[in-house]
């Protein structure tokens, strides 16, 4: 187990370093830099001064080495765009994205898995309807779902159409602030959760019906196990493996999907920040966002592996070896 965790940590480290370094070099290669923000009338001296201030006058390798040297002490440099340290900006955006991702994943799990167990173990009108609905939901990606939900929200006024808080909620009490955020959450969370819930439903239904055709289930029927126990205690634990296997991917997908949803619904998360930073050539902010995204990904695949180990003794042994 320790060797497994050590390998995972090494993978996380490689991922974070590679992703953030690649982001740094890519942004450096891009035409234009922070000095394009100074306008067309900036004097050459001024441009040179700003470049020196942010370390852009050094060769790329030197700039990278200096950045890594500071990054290991969690100093990610300053954002040009916001004129503030990257650490605070990225930290807050990452927290917002994490809230959205956790809520969406919980929703997807709570909707998708029970429905999958239902459609996988039963036939009839209800199961067919659920199956059709999930096929439709799989075909509406978060980009379209969020646009549609914003449209519905603007017509019905059931939800706010965007943002995370409605007023500049600085002086309200924390309970009012939480209520305000909770009112803004359903729209982006649903947009993210629906396609993933549908994917879970399809996978669970397939593996459930596979599990129900196994010989050991026939033996359980012969022993007189009740229909409920048959599904919940005998078939489900076997059938949940494919879901655990895609959990890690789902977390990466949530990060991807969250960019689109954050953009459409104006949720102040990591995806939006990264997008703004890329457009403004805000090199340290891009690298900081990429490093955080890499951490999220590594964490996601770790969670996926742990779930797989919990669900399947064979996977546990393979990991321990």
């Amino acid at each position, binding site marked *: 187990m320790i060797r497994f965790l050590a390998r995972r940590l090494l993978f996380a480290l490689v*991922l974070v370093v*590679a*992703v953030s370094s690649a*982001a740094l070099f*890519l*942004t450096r*290669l*891009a*035409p234009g830099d922070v000095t394009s923000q100074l306008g067309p009338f900036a004097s050459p001296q001024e441009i040179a001064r700003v470049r020196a201030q942010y370390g852009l006058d050094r060769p790329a390798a030197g700039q990278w080495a200096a950045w890594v040297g500071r990054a290991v002490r969690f100093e990610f440099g300053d954002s040009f765009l916001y004129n503030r340290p990257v650490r605070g900006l990225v930290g807050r955006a990452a927290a917002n994205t994490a809230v959205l991702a956790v809520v969406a994943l919980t929703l997807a799990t709570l909707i998708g898995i029970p429905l999958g167990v239902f459609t996988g173990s039963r036939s009839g009108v209800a199961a067919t309807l659920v199956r059709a609905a999930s*096929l*439709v939901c*799989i*075909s*509406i*990606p*978060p*980009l*379209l779902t969020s*646009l*549609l939900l*914003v*449209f519905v929200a*603007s*017509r019905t006024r059931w939800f706010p*159409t965007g943002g995370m808080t409605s007023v500049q909620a600085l002086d309200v009490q924390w309970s009012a602030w939480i209520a305000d955020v909770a009112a803004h959450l359903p729209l982006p969370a649903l947009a993210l959760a629906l*396609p*993933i819930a*549908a*994917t879970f439903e*399809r*996978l669970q*239904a*397939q593996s459930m019906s596979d599990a129900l055709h196994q010989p050991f289930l026939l033996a359980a029927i012969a022993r007189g196990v009740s229909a409920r126990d048959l599904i919940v205690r005998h078939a489900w634990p076997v059938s949940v493996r494919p879901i655990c296997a*895609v959990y890690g*991917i*789902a977390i*990466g*997908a949530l*990060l*991807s*999907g969250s*960019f*689109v949803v954050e*953009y*459409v619904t104006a949720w102040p998360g990591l*995806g939006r920040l*990264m*997008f703004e930073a*890329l*457009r403004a050539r805000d090199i340290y902010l*891009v690298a900081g966002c*990429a490093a955080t*995204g890499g951490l999220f*990904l590594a964490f996601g*695949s770790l969670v996926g592996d742990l779930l797989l180990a919990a669900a399947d003794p064979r996977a546990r042994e393979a990991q321990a070896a």
Partner: protein
Amino acid sequence: MRRAGLALFALVVAVAVGAPWLAPNDPERAFSNLLYAPPTPVHAGAGGLYIHPQRLVSRLERRFEQDTARRAPLQWLTNGRLVSVDESQGGPLLVLGADVFGRDTFSRLIFGARTSLALAVLATAGALILGALVGGVAGYAGGRVDELLSRFSEFVLVLPAIYVALALRAVMPLVLPAETVFVALTVIFALLGWPIVARGVRAIVASERDRDYAAAALAAGAGPVRTLVLHLLPAAWSYLTVQATLLLPAFILAEATLSYVGLGFPDTVPTWGTMLQDAANVSLVAEAPWMLAPAAAIFIFVLAVNLTVQSTGRAPVQLEP
């Protein structure tokens, strides 16, 4: 189900191919008195189908009125168009209303389908070829080459594709001519799509390599390249077709997402993504719901592909935006 999916897919492709003939209007033509005009209802009466000409009542309120006193007949097969209404008679025929510049949404939608579909098809072909080559070499060579290529493709696989696409597109100049964007996006998508193809092809080639027929080909004097391309890769054919059905919708969405956030095609080129930008304006969509037409087009295409995959017994997995 499979047949319905294939039929729907064929319909979308046929509409895209036949766009110049099917479009009632020139997609670039702006009717200055018909900004955000609603769809024109078609009536049936003596002398065939006809519409009432639309007249602008209030430019400020965007209010239109149908001139019920006049009848403008639908003309079939004139001026190289399947159906249209002559402007001097009281046209144009707006099947899905008009956009912000008074351009025909339906004509732009089917012309946009050409760009969006062509891009997705070319990128899919690129990803399949690249993936088959890398996977084939890895599976055939084995050993250290296999190890290196597999690790690399696994690394690309864990990255959230949309961020990599954003980053790669963002480092290019923001304003590019449409042809350059087309080539750039095709290359970026192909570079992001190959790893998942390579992983499967590698497994197939690695197991096929030890079969007798491969040994026979080698013994008969076929070189390794000939054996790989002509004898081993055909075994991966059905795997490649399944992957194509997964990549196509993903690339359609990727184009839509990038164009939607302003990093894809320039606004003047009709694609499903650039047209979707109009759907971002909440208050406008509430008044002119036909601006959601590109969303419906994307949904129909993805649904068609998913229906086709669904009945081959594999659960479609929608884990990218």
